[in-house]
């Protein structure tokens, strides 16, 4: 039942905001809708944790502890982001960057985007999952080009074409999976249902599935932002409005990775080998290393953090690729903390950019002086994302790296070297932005930094203490996807 609510609220919200998007209360309505979604997802989570996995609408929808955790995360971050976007967008409008119609578009698309992500997470049907992923692209592409600047148009075009093409490969992969499943489950609806596929995964035809996985990996991997398919990501993050960057980086990538992980489970089950895992590890490692080296060349702050997202998605992909309880646990923990931290960082960065009127890092100075909350938010967030204890990112990285040392020792030097380079790059720039003298004016509207500190607080908590029920929950999920 909650599933329907979760999906219905944002859908309705999208339509409502398409109608009333011009009203003054649109931002509040947006937040309210997101809050509703969050509540529903909370109820769903509680039920799944108590009653275990379940399906709905003759198996079209399906929740287990893996995707319910992502659902909760998505709904939560979507909610906090909507809170942040309210003053942010007001300030943008105040600066004359946005017209009222653009705001309407933004709000309704925001809700629809949430809807598509939740659909992709909740559906049991791989085909529908594909449709939802494509829809997620479609809903965000106009948001990326919201400012209508040449750069934003270019970014949006690249985003659209690259992700579209990538997704097309994923469709081919899905077809192949269906083709293989049809042999076992017979033609028709059930052959694409994850629950059924999971049962019979060992009987699926290996050669087909290996081919299928290649297509799925390239397809969804493009959306995850794995190197060398990542090229759309920095542009889109840098040029879109900050709330969009936040949800893209914090949520969409997770959802895409979720799709990859689901298919990995099938494929490894069918092949009985570790092929899929190895491929993922390879891509993950490549992404981490390349992103680290890209980082040291950035001038635009949002672009830099986009690359850091690539790095962290690579790390997660690596973790899920390694498999095993600890690594998977770490992967999911990393998903959580990364979404929270990265979105928090984007919130802070957004306000910083508004305050200084630029995203160029050498022009941003002395945030701590002008607006300490933004400055400290950025500083702490950056340190957290760099894997500094006692923040949660360190916890997950610790588990990932130690597992890697344990089972793939040769990878650790690369990982650690990459982390070191990334540290030098990001930290050096953060310092110049946060510290020093400045002559900036404070913002016209008070910035909303409650979300920032809520997120960072959670991350800090997760670094020091992972509540047992959360741990059990993650363990269940890890057991599911092994």
């Amino acid at each position, binding site marked *: 039942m909650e599933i329907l609510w979760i999906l219905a609220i944002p859908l309705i919200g999208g339509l409502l905001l398409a109608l009333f998007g011009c009203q003054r209360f649109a931002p509040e309505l947006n937040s309210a809708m997101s809050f509703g979604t969050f509540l529903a997802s909370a109820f769903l989570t509680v039920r799944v944790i108590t009653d275990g996995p379940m399906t709905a609408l003759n198996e079209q929808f399906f929740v287990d502890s893996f995707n319910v955790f992502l659902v909760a995360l998505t709904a939560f971050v979507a909610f906090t982001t909507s809170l942040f976007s309210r003053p942010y967008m007001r300030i943008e409008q105040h600066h004359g960057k946005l017209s009222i119609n653009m705001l309407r578009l933004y709000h309704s698309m925001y809700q629809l985007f949430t809807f598509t992500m939740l659909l992709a997470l909740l559906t049991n049907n791989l085909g529908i999952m594909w449709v939802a992923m494509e829809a997620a692209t479609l809903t965000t592409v106009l948001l990326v080009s919201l400012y209508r600047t040449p750069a934003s148009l270019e970014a949006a*075009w*690249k985003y659209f*074409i*690259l992700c579209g*093409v*990538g997704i097309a*490969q994923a469709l081919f992969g899905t077809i192949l999976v269906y083709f293989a499943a049809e042999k076992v489950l017979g033609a028709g609806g059930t052959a694409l249902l994850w629950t059924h596929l999971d049962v019979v995964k060992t009987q699926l035809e290996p050669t087909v599935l*290996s*081919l299928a*996985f*290649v*297509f799925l*990996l*390239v397809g969804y991997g493009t959306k995850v932002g794995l190197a*060398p*398919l990542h*090229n*759309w990501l920095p542009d889109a993050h840098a040029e879109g409005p900050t709330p969009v960057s936040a949800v893209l980086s914090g949520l969409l990538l997770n959802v895409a990775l979720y799709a990859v992980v689901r298919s990995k489970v099938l494929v490894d089950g069918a092949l009985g080998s570790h*092929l899929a895992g190895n*491929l993922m590890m390879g891509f993950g490692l490549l992404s981490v290393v*390349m992103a680290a*080296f*890209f*980082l*040291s*060349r950035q001038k635009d702050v949002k672009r830099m953090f986009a690359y850091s997202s690539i790095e962290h998605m690579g790390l997660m992909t690596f973790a899920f690729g390694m498999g095993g309880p*600890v690594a998977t*646990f770490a992967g999911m923990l990393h998903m959580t903390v990364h979404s929270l931290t990265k979105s928090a960082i984007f919130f802070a960065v957004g306000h910083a950019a508004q305050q200084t009127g630029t995203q160029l890092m050498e022009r941003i100075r002395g945030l*701590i002086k002008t607006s300490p909350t933004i400055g400290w938010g950025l500083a702490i967030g950056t340190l957290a994302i760099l894997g*500094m*204890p*006692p923040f949660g990112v*360190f*916890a997950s990285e*610790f*588990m990932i*790296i*130690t*597992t890697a*040392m*344990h089972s793939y020792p040769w990878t*650790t030097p690369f990982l*650690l070297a990459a*982390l*070191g*380079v990334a*540290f*030098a790059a990001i*930290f*050096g720039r953060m*310092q*110049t932005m946060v*510290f*020093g*003298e400045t002559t900036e004016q404070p913002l016209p509207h008070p910035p909303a930094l409650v979300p920032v500190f809520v997120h960072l607080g959670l991350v800090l908590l997760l670094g*020091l*203490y*992972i509540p047992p029920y959360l*741990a059990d929950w993650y*363990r269940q999920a890890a057991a599911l996807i092994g």
Partner: protein
Amino acid sequence: MIFVSTLLPIDVALGVIVYWLLLAFAGLLLQNTRTITRVIFPAGAAGALVLAAAALSGLGGPANVAVLPLGLPDLPFHLRMDSLSAFFMLLLGAASIGISLYSAGYFRDYEGNELGLLCFEYHIFLAAMALVFLADDAYLFMVAWEAMALSSYFLVTTDHVVPEIRRAGFLYLLIAHVGAIAILMCFGVMQGGHGDYTFATMRNAHLNELWASVTFLLALFGFGAKAGIVPLHVWLPEAHPAAPSPVSAMMSGIMLKTAIYGILRVTFDLIDVQLWWWGVLALTLGLITALFGVIFAAVQTDMKRLLAYSSIENIGIILVGIGLAITFHVFRKDAVAALALTATLYHALNHAFMKGLLFLGTGSVLHATGERKLGKLGGLIHPMPKLALLVLVGALAIAGLPPLNGFVSEWLILQAFLLSPGLPHSYLNMLIPIAAAALVLASALAGYVMVKFYGVIFLGQPREGKFEDAHDIGIWERIGLGWLALGCILLGVFPVFVILLIDPVTQLMVGHTLGGSAAQTGWLWLTPLEPGRASYSPLILFLIVIVGVIFTMLAVKKFYHGRLRHGPAWDCGFPEQTARMQDTAEGFGQPIRQIFEPFFGVTRIVPTPFDKHPHYRGESRDRIWDYAYLPIASVTEKLSALIGRLQHGRIHIYLLYSFLTLLALLAFVR
């Protein structure tokens, strides 16, 4: 010590840590200068006192263990307090009492909000260091370690408006982080495959020689980065001057010792095998570090940089001790190993007091004159006699002069050197005397450095401007400095008691103690092995000197008419004397620079005879920058430029990437 009987030392230590954290948040919330200086810092000092007491009672007691239900789900926080950690906690507590009390006075004219933040970071820093000593699993250790690094980083960048300070902070945290990565890998190697990261399992895990060596090297690198072992020292002379003086005192006096703790913990406790060449490596590195540090200290022109380099030197001396201990331990000469280890720990303890005292002293000088350049200071003994006296104690102590504490530890190390012969390797036997010579040279140079430091700051006449308005130190500063100075004297005069304190640690590390033989002829006489071979009684020495002085004075008073006139300085009848005729800091260091020319990248600005305003400047740079660090930076630069090309901007190229990836993968799985 009633409370100790009722609850374990580790509980008390934990309590103090929590208490410090509470103080930190209190400071952050209050943001009121008066309250923070008058209440919170003294309260922190009280906490330090309790911690020291707990550690004292924990020394020699059984290792007591605690597990907190925090941390990772399958790796909760393990804590353990054995003699080693107890000793270092004693160091932390005892030294930070003085520093906190001093801070209570020093920070009195900071603004409230800034001070609130500073107080927060300061107490977090304290708590983190204590937690490092308590940690008994890799995760908690890393958390505490990095929390320590972070808090100290923010303390260093307190005055972040200055670009140099930002740069210093960046360099510091970067090197600290690289070191932390190495430490993490070191733990990873030590757990040897059965993914359990508690120290307990590491103790039980057996490593073959190769992996043990890898572990040791990683630990040496990782902890060396924090300790400032050459060539990882570059952050130290940048960060220490940048920080507010109590923070410098804390970092140099205590934080560097956490690295020493780490090395000892890994080498003697967590690894079950040692190899003799580790000792030689540590010995050599230590000597290089010591000489390097002291030589650079001699040519510094900034008083805090000078002290920072002197810290490098002392770390080198400590490392030499560790190296000796390892070597002897490997060759089963545990008595001598215990001697070397005792000397090491003793010196660590001494350095905490001496360097704390000196850094705090520079803080007061800075506060009174607003001047850090030695070239502008001078004659401060007249406006600030109390400070001058207290700092003199520290300077003499760190110069390794009897009967103060610096001398005792160096004496012990030299004894260890002298008792070394008879090692199976003839090369080692050759190396040991040379090493001893180098060590002696370093400590003699330390005397040079300290004469320069004290003489240029406190003696003579102010070189530029006058410091009439330079006020002497207030009551809190006096208490803090007094405590540390007292420590320097007592540690120097009653060595036997200190050695008895250290005994349980050496027992734990090398399975042998010194106290039995050291105290065999009573607490008055320090006899490392047997009275015939070497003995030293600082107290008697002290008394004799005092008696001698008093006797002479009385005699002179008795027989001398005591007529005394005051006049201008004679100076061989030199016509006019100006303060600028005294040696500047550069001038005083010049002979050293001439002798050790090749060490430095020297840049000189020498005036021509026709200059209206002749201006001489000599600058000695650290060559290691050019040889070690800049290449690494440029390589990274090039690599990232190379990879940056991939981000080409043409969508066709991007499509081509995906296309090729697809084809490659298809070909691969096929």
